[in-house]
């Protein structure tokens, strides 16, 4: 049995919540057992945000994870916090546009994604989380890109539908980057 225990973390506004939800939703579409758990912020605005996603072939016991085997990191504070928790041989996906320092762990797979630049080039900085998402699914193989697209389509309806294409594009770009780095 494979259990993906993912934490995605960054600033509020960087779209880490949506990142996680798309993974979970895609997992559900594939008939897997999933949970998504946000660390909901203070009753105040701002600050950092993270969410935990578990995708598993069996019913998910704990939606809380102390040792994730996958982390997607969007800013420096989150790197400092979550890198040490990552399981051995775990996967770290890093938004290098935001993080100008190197991870210290040597026993893990690291994918470096200049997500902001890539998204900027696509015309919308906001899609940087989708770039990260593409990179993540490429390396972690949690869900297929088709399922992610389906999840996106379910989410982005009405006015938001116009952003569907650029988001898909961003995911593909992310996948490409990961593929390259995986060699």
């Amino acid at each position, binding site marked *: 049995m494979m259990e993906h225990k993912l934490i995605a973390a960054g600033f509020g506004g960087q779209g880490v919540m949506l990142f996680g939800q798309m993974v979970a939703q895609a997992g559900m579409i594939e008939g897997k057992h999933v949970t998504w758990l946000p660390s909901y912020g203070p009753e*105040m*605005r701002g600050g950092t945000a993270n969410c935990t996603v578990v995708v598993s072939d069996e019913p998910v016991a704990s939606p809380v994870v102390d040792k994730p085997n996958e982390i997607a990191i969007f800013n420096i504070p989150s790197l400092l916090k979550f890198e040490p928790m990552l399981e051995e041989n775990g996967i770290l996906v890093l938004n290098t546009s935001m993080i100008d320092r190197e991870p210290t762990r040597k026993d893990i797979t690291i994918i470096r994604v200049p997500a902001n630049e890539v998204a900027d080039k696509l015309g919308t900085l906001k899609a940087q989380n989708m770039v990260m998402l593409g990179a993540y699914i490429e390396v972690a193989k949690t869900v297929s890109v088709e399922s992610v697209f389906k999840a996106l389509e379910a989410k982005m309806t009405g006015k938001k539908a116009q952003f569907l294409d650029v988001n898909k594009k961003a995911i593909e770009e992310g996948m490409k980057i990961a593929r390259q780095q995986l060699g």
Partner: protein
Amino acid sequence: MGQELQESIVLAKMPKSLSGKEFTYCPGCHHGIVHRIIAELIDEFQLREKTVLVAPVGCSVFAYEFFDVDGTVAAHGRALAVATGMKRARPDMFIITYQGDGDLAAIGTAETIHAANRGERVTTIFINNAVYGMTGGQMAPTTLLGMKTTTSPYGRTPEREGYPIHIMEIMKALPGVAYAERVKVSKPQDIPKAKMAIKKAFYAQLLDVGFGIVEVLSTCPTNWGMDPVEAQRWLEENMTKEFPLGVYVDKVTEVMKEKGVK
């Protein structure tokens, strides 16, 4: 830029009665402006050593950390009961409550009205931003008609949600109130006026006249879904119509004159 070489004086800087801790408010939120005014007045009146600030539950729940005066946080809505307890036990101290519209005008209605009606010698700063800021933008008792919030998603109607409540107008009916004024802080020109209003509310307590309250029409850019500058415009155009600015009760100016203070 070499400005320092030029001889100069400081016209305005962070008041001493602020702790220096960064405010946790969203960018452009008016809470911060009002905090600063209060701190300036605590400095000017030299009240730092006898003030207790009662923060409410609301975005300003941390207020007591931002001021360099003793403080506490009251249960949601109960700041004026807490303040009453303090002032009755220690009449020599200077008690301020700082409250939002949900806090003061919804759950705290009874405490507000009775403290005011008893003429408790405390000073209340009432931040009316027409919304529950801290909990994420639900309808407040002061939400305008037609306004959409997360709990009035189809726009506030008199039939379903009732009318916005007018605290200053109610204060007029309460004989214990010594000073009540509604101000705003959305233009630089408003600031000295708002400060004078709060000053009089301080005097209501300091000169033993009665209860002092100042309502400040304020923005909540985050929950209004506007940028801070736009939010100020919206306030000017909409909130001041529903909530007319002005002095609603003033028994203080006379006493100030009698006692020769300004």
